[in-house]
């Protein structure tokens, strides 16, 4: 009726006109009333139609997003399955082109050799241009030009060479929803590793839509670049492993070379035998022919030559027989754990008796009672016999021969020293020259030395050791042999097997440790984890340690190497334990056979989930910073694998299930008051920027805001939709949604920080929240902001147990919760940002109100613990 009256009033000026054409007044009133009803009906119809269209648009958008999300998940799975770097680079560019709709995509990757970014893959770029781009090197300074802060758009950079938009920064919330893409513009998407290093970037241009991508598309792009970064880093690690494998095959080839030596043996040995034989036979022939006519001096001379050459021949034949005997017994070297001291003592008696006969003093000294080493005892015995025999041979009566065995940090040092004639300085390097040289034209001889020293050198080389000779004052020679500690032959690591594991309990972790030890080439690797009480570390898996140690080891925080790492959260690399006084005691433990140790914490956010400790490098060298960098780069992956293993243990959750959940979650999630939710997210991000949250954390927050409550899907609908307060059990259901959400997101290889943000988004500032009960500043800043945004969007929306609140009422509720649920500092910033958007919120609420029915149909959610307010 009011409407009718108003229309009557409004149309009053026309009444006179109508009256003037002499139509009766009641008719005019009736006519006007009918018109008013018609107008009202039309307006209602239009509103309903508009509502439907909005719904249709929303549904379309949702379908589109779901498709995109599925696409992204499929693409990341594809990317993550690729290990070859160039193939991977191509896949990444194709994926980016496919998902983001950019027509020109160039992937630049950092090259460690040229210290510059180089174009590695293209999409939508003509061949000639590809060649030009490939040739160019983008220096770090060039990249800095591309990534100027004023061009920042989320975590990407929007370059606008024409300067069409002025120099305003393009932040997520400042960015207008739609802008036309201008020719010459470029979008730079950095590939930043978890440590913040930029390993490459994508150079994008010409979006198919002709528009600057909106924040949601940018987030999709950034999600994709994160996946690509992980995959590229994996490919790098794989590369490293492949190289390690190559090293290992080289090592096994070396073992096989003994067989090759044998092949060349006959050809080479014949020459060594024939040389003295030639002299013997020629002089004998001469003697036979000229016996009667020879002068006595000549006869003496000839006989001496024959005798000397015969001795030489005997020596060579003995060496060869010894060797061939060994060769017949084994096809290749077989290292076994041997006590070198016992081996030497075993030979000592024969040396001593020989020394007595020759009136030579003989001593055998060892720095330890036993020196364990992995070696071939027969070969080493052969070497010892020859070296000591040689020393006796060249030492005149009354001289001295000393054999020493000494442990150094990474090797065992064997010396044989005599007081003999010494070796001419220019021959010192030649005496070990290989007897087995394949090149027949080589011009070498083993005059006087026989072939023994060359054989010795071969034996030493096959133990990865070194041998050299030096003359000592006042006279004599010292031969030194360094034998590194080494284990049995390593089997090449197979990184592929890790991904296709049968998930037998324990086996997974054990194989993980094998993988680590083989990648690093170390003998002892230990994975320690905090026990449930959190006050001790126990060994979860170990390589190269006796079971008794594994079962009994318990390390307190702050004690031992691992305990110190636990306390500090930082890597510990000790190159020389002997010089580290504070660790002196632990050195006595037999498992530290080399005085070098590397201990890396596995951190999941701020939480320590384990410690990997390695020592005893296979080649006897000390662990160095290269090893540290490698193990540290593996650490996040190991943490992820461990976490995944735990979740697999909890129950089978396959990728399909996760994807389905995500799909339904996002579909439903977007149906609720999209605009209000978005504006709350915008407030949240704006507050974060005001609070000076650094760029990467902003990005984590933006990502978390999208997914923080996917876990609500695991809460039964009747609990979520229940009007009124929840009982204790229902409340527990709701509280579990945080963990459940993280479980669902597991497959996305979430950044640890994102997981932290999501994990703690229901913590209260006073410590009464869930799931952990963190309080105050201990709650991540982003989580505190998500808490505020979640509450605000919930309060402003209709709930089954209460109607939507007005903005002032909602803000009052938040004010009332400051210090209890909310962080005072963040709440202040958040409320100020909310106030700035009052107009838009009020408008939106008015619109939402008209589609209240729709809201009621949607699966509703929010902050149920605030249901009472």
């Amino acid at each position, binding site marked *: 009726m009011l409407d009718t009256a108003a229309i009557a009033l409004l149309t009053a000026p026309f009444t006179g006109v109508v009256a003037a054409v002499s139509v009766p007044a009641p008719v005019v009133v009736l006519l006007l009333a009918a018109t008013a009803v018609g107008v009202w009906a039309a307006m209602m119809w239009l509103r309903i139609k508009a509502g439907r269209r909005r719904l249709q648009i929303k549904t379309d958008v949702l379908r589109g997003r779901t498709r995109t999300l599925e696409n992204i998940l499929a693409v990341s799975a594809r990317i993550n399955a690729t290990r070859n770097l160039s193939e991977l680079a191509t896949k990444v560019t194709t994926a980016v082109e496919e998902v983001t709709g950019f027509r020109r995509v160039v992937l630049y990757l950092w090259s460690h050799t040229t210290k510059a970014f180089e174009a590695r893959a293209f999409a939508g770029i003509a061949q000639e241009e590809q060649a030009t781009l490939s040739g160019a090197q983008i220096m770090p300074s060039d990249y800095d030009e591309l990534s100027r802060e004023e061009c920042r758009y989320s975590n990407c950079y929007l370059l606008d060479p024409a300067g069409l938009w002025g120099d305003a920064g393009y932040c997520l919330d400042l960015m207008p929803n739609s802008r036309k893409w201008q020719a010459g513009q470029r979008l730079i998407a950095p590939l930043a590793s978890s440590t913040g290093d930029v390993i490459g970037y994508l150079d994008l241009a010409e979006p198919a839509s002709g528009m600057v991508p909106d924040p949601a598309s940018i987030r999709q792009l950034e999600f994709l670049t994160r996946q690509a970064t992980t995959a590229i880093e994996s490919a790098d690690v794989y590369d490293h492993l492949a190289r390690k494998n190559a090293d290992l095959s080289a090592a096994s080839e070396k073992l096989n070379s003994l067989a090759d030596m044998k092949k060349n043996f006959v050809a080479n040995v*014949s020459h060594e035998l024939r040389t003295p034989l*030639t002299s013997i*036979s*020629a*002089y004998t022939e*001469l003697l036979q*022919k000229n016996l009667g006519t020879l002068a006595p001096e000549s006869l003496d001379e000839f006989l001496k030559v024959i005798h000397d050459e015969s001795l030489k021949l005997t020596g060579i034949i003995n060496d060869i027989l010894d060797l061939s005997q060994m060769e017949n017994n084994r096809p290749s070297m077989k290292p076994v754990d041997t006590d070198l001291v016992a081996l030497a003592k075993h030979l000592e008696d024969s040396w001593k008796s020989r020394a007595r006969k020759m009136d030579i003093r003989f001593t055998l000294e060892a720095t330890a009672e036993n020196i364990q080493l992995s070696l071939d005892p027969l070969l080493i015995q052969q070497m010892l016999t020859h070296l000591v025999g040689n020393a006796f041979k060249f030492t005149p009566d009354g001289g001295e021969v000393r054999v020493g065995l000494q442990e150094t940090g990474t090797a065992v040092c064997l010396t044989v020293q005599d007081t003999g004639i010494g070796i001419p300085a220019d021959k010192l390097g030649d005496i070990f020259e290989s007897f087995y040289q394949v090149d027949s034209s080589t*011009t070498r001889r083993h005059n006087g030395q026989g072939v023994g020293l060359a054989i010795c050198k071969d034996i030493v080389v096959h133990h990865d050791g070194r041998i050299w000779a030096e003359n000592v004052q006042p006279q004599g020679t010292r031969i030194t042999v360094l034998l590194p500690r080494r284990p049995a032959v390593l089997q090449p690591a197979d990184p592929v097997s890790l991904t296709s594991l049968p998930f037998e309990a324990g086996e997974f972790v054990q194989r993980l440790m094998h993988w680590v030890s083989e990648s690093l080439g170390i003998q002892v690797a230990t994975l320690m984890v905090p026990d449930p009480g959190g006050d001790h570390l126990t060994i979860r898996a170990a390589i190269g340690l006796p079971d008794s140690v594994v079962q009994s080891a318990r390390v307190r925080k702050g004690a031992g190497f691992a305990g110190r790492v636990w306390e500090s959260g930082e890597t510990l690399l000790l190159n020389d334990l002997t010089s580290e006084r504070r660790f002196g005691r632990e050195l006595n433990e037999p498992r530290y056979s080399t005085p070098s140790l590397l201990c890396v914490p596995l951190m999941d956010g701020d939480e320590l989930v384990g410690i990997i400790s390695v020592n005893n490098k296979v080649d006897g060298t000390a662990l160095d910073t290269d090893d540290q960098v490698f193990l540290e780069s593996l650490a996040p992956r190991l943490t992820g694998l461990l976490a995944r293993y735990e979740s697999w243990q909890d129950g089978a959750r396959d990728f399909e299930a996760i994807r389905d959940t995500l799909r339904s979650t996002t579909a439903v999630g977007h149906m609720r008051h999209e605009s209000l939710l978005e504006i709350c997210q915008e407030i949240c991000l704006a507050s974060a920027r005001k609070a000076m949250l650094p760029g990467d954390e902003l990005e984590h927050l933006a990502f978390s805001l999208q997914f923080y409550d996917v876990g609500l899907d695991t809460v039964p609908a009747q609990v979520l939709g229940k009007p009124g307060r929840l009982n204790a059990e229902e409340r527990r259901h709701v509280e579990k949604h945080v963990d459940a959400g993280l479980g669902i997101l597991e497959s996305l290889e979430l950044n640890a920080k994102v997981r932290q943000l999501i994990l703690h988004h229901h913590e209260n500032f006073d410590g009464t929240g869930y799931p952990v009960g963190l309080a105050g500043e201990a709650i991540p800043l982003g989580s505190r902001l998500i808490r505020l945004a979640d509450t605000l969007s919930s309060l402003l929306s209709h709930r089954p147990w209460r109607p939507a609140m007005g903005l002032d009422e909602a803000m009052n509720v938040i004010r009332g919760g400051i210090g209890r649920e909310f962080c005072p500092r963040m709440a202040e910033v958040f409320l100020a940002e909310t106030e700035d958007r009052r107009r838009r919120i009020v408008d939106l609420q008015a619109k939402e109100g008209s589609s209240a029915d729709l809201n009621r149909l949607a699966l509703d959610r929010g902050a149920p613990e605030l249901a009472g307010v």
Partner: protein
Amino acid sequence: MNESPRVLVVDDEKPISTLLAQMFEQEGYEVANAFDGIDCMNKMATFRPDVVIMDIMMPKLDGVDTTRLIRRNRSYSETIVVALSARSDEETRQRMKDAGANLFMKKPFVIAKLLARVSRMLEIRSESH
């Protein structure tokens, strides 16, 4: 034969080289010794031998390369090179032959046989002139 043929014995093994020198001298040859390939090339120019007794495994320059150098010089094309080696495998024989040696004998050798072969080869050479 107006003058004694000249023999250059190239071998780094002292006993062998001494013995060979004595043997050839006894047979009436003029003899010089060289102890490696470089030494041999120097003496080729000053001594101008008719026959070179060439060892193969020698320091500095081995017998194969030395023979090749000799054959590269046209003024030595008439010189007879007798390879004498403890390496008697087919590959070494072939390499020595390719380098231009006229005869290959393996060590240990019978002195009388070596002398007979050398003398026979010198005869053939003078007949063909």
